């Protein structure tokens, strides 16, 4: 018995050791193509000016993982990429560098900047100009349509960048939630609607700097910041007082033909009531402005008026340069 047992165990041991097949040795050669990819001139430039100094990668080649698969979008034209990025450096990065120090953008910035050529049209008919996601990436649309010799067009584009960057700043260091209590009742998801109730006139009366600012307090904050950073101090003051000034002008014109005309008199009275509402709107806007100034100073140690001066000067220079370049 013991013998059988002994032989059985030896046999099993032999089988165990020899039975299972060996695996192939790992080859030293890779099955993947490990050749270094060729970098184009543009790619090298992007590495030198975005990746190395700011740790931001710029994606301009089509990648359907970056955008909504349900939308019909296209990548930018190759020739438009570098001019746009040069302008981005001058209007966005440089001012922050000068005011807040060289590492500011490097530490608080999106890791990816995605450029899309076409319009991102939504079901409501609105167009998404850009989005910021989780503080990690900013996507910019309509890259191909940008006309750098047109100040309004350029302002609109940088409005988007400053707006999205503000979201990223907020996602890193949130603002005081009491901001939402300044104008709590005017927020609406139908801010893009047609008609009087959704017009800029109404928005200003209710204390919002733009129609989009009425979407929610998050967008409101970003709209305030971006408005301040694309308009000079004077232009911004004009925007805040836009409605008040317009009503004053209308009143002047009407008072000239007032006489005894009853309907003109009634129009004047209506305007005077609107004027009071507009002034209330201005007061609310100034309150929001103070909030923003305070946020930048206390959280980031930045004087936003200084930053404003740098960004708006840079923008105007670019537009002038592109105009004289005969574009």
């Amino acid at each position, binding site marked *: 018995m013991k013998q059988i047992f002994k032989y059985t165990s030896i046999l099993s041991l032999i089988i165990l050791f020899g039975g*299972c097949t060996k695996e192939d040795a790992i080859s030293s050669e890779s099955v993947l193509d490990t050749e270094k990819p060729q970098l184009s001139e543009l790619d090298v430039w992007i590495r030198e000016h975005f990746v190395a100094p700011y740790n931001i990668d710029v994606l301009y080649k089509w990648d359907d993982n970056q955008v909504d698969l349900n939308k019909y*979008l296209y*990548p930018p034209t190759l020739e438009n990429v570098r001019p746009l990025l040069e302008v981005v450096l001058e209007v966005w990065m440089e001012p922050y560098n000068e005011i807040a120090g060289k590492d500011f953008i490097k530490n608080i910035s999106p890791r990816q900047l995605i450029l899309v050529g076409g*319009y991102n049209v939504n079901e409501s008919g609105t167009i998404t100009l850009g989005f910021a996601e989780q503080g990690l990436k900013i996507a910019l649309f309509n890259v191909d349509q940008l006309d750098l010799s047109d100040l309004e067009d350029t302002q609109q584009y940088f409005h988007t960048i400053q707006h999205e960057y503000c979201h990223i700043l907020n996602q890193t260091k949130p603002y005081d939630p009491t901001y939402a209590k300044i104008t709590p009742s005017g927020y609406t998801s139908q801010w893009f609607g047609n008609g009087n109730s959704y017009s800029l006139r109404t928005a200003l009366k209710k204390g919002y700097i733009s129609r989009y600012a009425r979407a929610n307090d998050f967008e409101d904050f970003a709209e305030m910041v971006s408005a301040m950073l694309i308009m000079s101090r004077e232009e911004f003051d004009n925007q805040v007082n836009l409605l008040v000034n317009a009503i004053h002008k209308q009143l002047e014109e009407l008072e000239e033909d007032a006489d005894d005309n009853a309907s003109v008199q009634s129009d004047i009275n209506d305007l005077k009531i609107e004027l009071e509402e507009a002034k209330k709107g201005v007061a609310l806007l100034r309150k929001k402005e103070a909030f923003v100034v305070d946020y930048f100073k206390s959280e980031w140690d930045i004087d936003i008026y200084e930053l404003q001066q740098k960004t708006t000067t840079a923008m105007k220079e670019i537009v002038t340069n592109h105009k004289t370049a005969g574009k």
Partner: protein
Amino acid sequence: MRTIIKNVYVLCVISILFCACKNDDDQELFNETATKRISEREQELKKLLTSSAHGWKAIYFTNPDQFGGFTLLMDFDEKGHVKMASDIDEDIEEKTSIYDINLGNTVKLTFSTKNHINKLNDSYVPEVLKGTGFEGDNEFSFYGTDGDMIIFRGVKNNTEVIFEKASEEDRTNLITQNREMINNITSRPEDPVYQVIKITGNGKSSLYNFNYNSLMRFVKSVTPTDGNKLIERSFGVGFTPEGLVLNPPLEIESEEFTDFTWDKENRKFVSRSEGFVAEIMYSNKPAYINDDYKNIGSSVHSLAFSPGERFDQVLNTQRFREMYSQVNIDAQKDHPEFRLQDIVLKFNKQADDPQNTHTLDLYFFYGQTRYFASYAVEFKKEDKKLKFKYLNEVNGNASDFKEYLMPLINFFTNPEGLIVNNEGRFWPQYTNPGYTLTSAEDATLRVHCASNFYNNN
């Protein structure tokens, strides 16, 4: 007993040990690892794309249920650049952009920066297709080859695109020739207004409507038959230097027609199948005359053409407008102050009464004053057409100016008659329908009239 059981146990253990390490995971379905296979597939695609001396061409039907085909001419180089031209719109200049070979569901070709192909997935232009554009794709999954052709499927919509090798001739001429062919499918002033599909075979021929939308490159043909049925066919149209390619093919009378050749002399596209001939042509006769003529003379009591009211709109054919202008020019030679104005058919009440007839009134200015020349006409409906017969002059102006106005009088009183079609509201803000009257003898002459703008007598 115990020994037997013990032996059985031992036997079981030994057999389990023998089987335990039988490992068939090594049985390979493929000779190589997945990674290697993907890598080779990428190389294969790259090699294919760069192997054609003169590049590739493709007719891309982005959505065969809604749009036609757009031709792309592409030349890929080793460094990742592609040169592309297309016949999508008037901008036919060749552009360079980047392409990449990436891995998605399978190996795919990506057009990484913008080029002609992106005109098909622009959600902003054209405006009528806002949100989707032509539903084109940017990326195409590689599905293998078929002889000399490469087969792709769009990543988003799964529509098939086939790349064919382009010849040297293609590189220089394909796009310009296609653009010319695109012009051939839209009518010229000398073409009759009816564009039809004519199928001839088995000793008979039938006509079907050809409703072509040039923006979408798509045909939605709906032809009523006399049996109160509708024959509906829809297909997309792509262009070649020789003619047309239809996708899906046109199916009529259990025959399928795909490729059509342009017959320049006779101005038609022809396709032949087993004993059947399909032609897309301009015809003097429409495929079908509808019942719009029935209201004329009853609820429609007048039809007026006016040079002021949208004279240049396309429903007034160029040949008619030329005829109208010529009448003016000829009259002004003898009467410089003459200026022709509205032409009105009045369906008068009690026209059976010998005192009253229907009239064809031609209004004109003489200097600052407005007059009209009135001609009595007999009116009947025959073979679904309106037929007016010239009777006599009603007033002095009619006799005085008859010789100048004859071409227009002849148009309306042609014994072959006029074919009527209700074109919808004449003015967007008023409900009066507009009707076109097309000469049954010469369908290059057609006029668009507002109904009930004038009163009858």
